[in-house]
């Protein structure tokens, strides 16, 4: 059966070049980078070389990168680490947008519950964008930091980060962005964005699961969230995951080389998919911003169906997509992100997200366009809500 895997925001295969680069670091070159003898110092040198590759991808200095176990851990370290390092001087107020990843939202809620922080969850417009004026009004003298994601994995929208940073910088408030969805997809430069902290995930770049990184601007202080020793210059305990770090460094280097070409290729594939859906399926909403969006991201809501049912029908044809974020999808809950952009719950239930990679081909898009319209039609034919809606429309 033909296969079209289009759920790369949930999981991406490790690139062969990345796997090959990692291979020696499991058994042959196994030393601990903190060890003082040569088996350790050689590994430390390899680790620092990878740190440089990650730094170069985002225009940072080498010593501004902390390796973590995931994007989620990097978000935890950024938010809890920064908030706890500064609350004695500034206060206990934190701002995040309402459409952040759970690792951002729940880090903020953790501070609210256990440390009496006040958290402002900023609303977004119908495209999922934060209004800088609204952000400005939400700032208080007690605000310790602001965290707003660069791109949404669920609706594909890109935020205008420099505009939001400018508001915070004028008030001297540090700004964190979760860039898991954007690094390797669109140009990301920490100086151009102006951010103080930025989250990276390895798997999103074709590195294995279990590796991520946090960029933090020099001079910032962070309270470690994993207490340990001298690893990551005393900012994140635990012996470093060297194979994962080599994977991330290699993937970052490749991402930097391929970025422009990849973005053009993905946008072309995405536009074909979107145009095909538009031509062949009635009553479909396109979610997220029409232009300011991730190049390989197409997201829809099909009226009158349940996204989960559509996933099962499509997977029987070898087509793999998602209803939203992988974790929210499994909980069978209506997406809070779609709620935040004003999609009605009955429409939000028909959410479907396609996230493409450089491995996808045009014939896979054709395969989706061959099977998606009949699958939607079939599900609608079973749906009493849809039949009632159609009858009402015919009567009117």
């Amino acid at each position: 059966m033909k296969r079209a895997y289009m759920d790369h925001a949930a999981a991406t295969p490790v690139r062969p070049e990345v796997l090959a680069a990692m291979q020696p670091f499991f058994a042959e070159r196994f030393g601990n980078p903190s060890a003082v003898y040569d088996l350790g110092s050689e590994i430390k040198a390899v680790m620092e070389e990878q740190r440089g590759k990650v730094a170069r991808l985002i225009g940072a200095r080498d010593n501004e990168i902390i390796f973590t176990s995931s994007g989620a851990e990097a978000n935890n370290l950024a938010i809890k680490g920064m908030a706890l390092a500064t609350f004695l001087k500034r206060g206990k107020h934190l701002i995040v947008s309402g459409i952040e990843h759970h690792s951002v939202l729940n880090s903020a809620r953790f501070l609210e519950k256990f440390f009496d922080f006040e958290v402002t969850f900023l609303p977004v417009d119908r495209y999922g964008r934060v209004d800088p004026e609204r952000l400005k009004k939400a700032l208080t003298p007690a605000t310790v930091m602001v965290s707003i994601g660069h791109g949404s994995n669920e609706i594909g929208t890109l935020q205008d980060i420099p505009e939001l940073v400018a508001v915070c910088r004028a008030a001297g408030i540090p700004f964190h962005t979760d860039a898991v969805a954007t690094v390797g997809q669109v140009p990301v430069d920490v100086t151009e964005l102006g951010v103080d902290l930025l989250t990276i995930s390895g798997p999103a770049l074709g590195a294995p699961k279990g590796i991520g990184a946090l960029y933090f601007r020099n001079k910032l202080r962070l309270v470690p969230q994993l207490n340990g020793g001298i690893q990551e210059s005393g900012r994140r305990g635990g012996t470093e995951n060297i194979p994962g770090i080599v994977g991330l460094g290699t993937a970052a280097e490749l991402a930097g080389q391929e970025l422009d070409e990849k973005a053009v290729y993905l946008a072309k594939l995405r536009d074909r998919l979107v145009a095909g859906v538009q031509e062949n399926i009635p009553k479909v909403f396109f979610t997220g911003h029409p232009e300011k969006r991730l190049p390989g991201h197409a997201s829809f809501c099909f009226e009158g169906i349940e996204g989960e049912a559509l996933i099962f029908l499509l997977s029987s044809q070898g087509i793999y997509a998602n209803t939203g974020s992988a974790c929210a999808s499994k909980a069978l809950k209506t997406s809070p992100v779609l709620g935040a952009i004003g999609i009605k719950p009955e429409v939000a239930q028909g959410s479907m997200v396609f996230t493409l990679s450089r491995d996808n081909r045009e014939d896979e898009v054709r395969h989706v366009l061959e099977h998606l319209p009949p699958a939607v039609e079939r599900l609608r034919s079973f749906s009493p809500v849809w039949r009632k809606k159609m009858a009402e429309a015919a009567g009117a």
Partner: protein
Amino acid sequence: MKFLDGCKADATADLVYRACPMHLLEPMDLIKDLEPGQVLEILTDYDGALEDIPAWCAKHGQEFMGISEDACGDCYKLYIKKICEEKS
């Protein structure tokens, strides 16, 4: 221990919230880049540094100048004057 006021430094190691023994490792690295007579400032919230840093200076032939309090009160400031080159 000598308390200093308004001591000027040529380099600073900010080790606040960073795990032990970073309060020894990073200054050891940074002092290599200084010239004899220059001063390194160490910011730390680790109480053990008050014993460890003077002891390290005595062992390595560097001068421990003294300590001052940070205006915000969230860390100690310790000052070392470089006297001799560190062995690498």
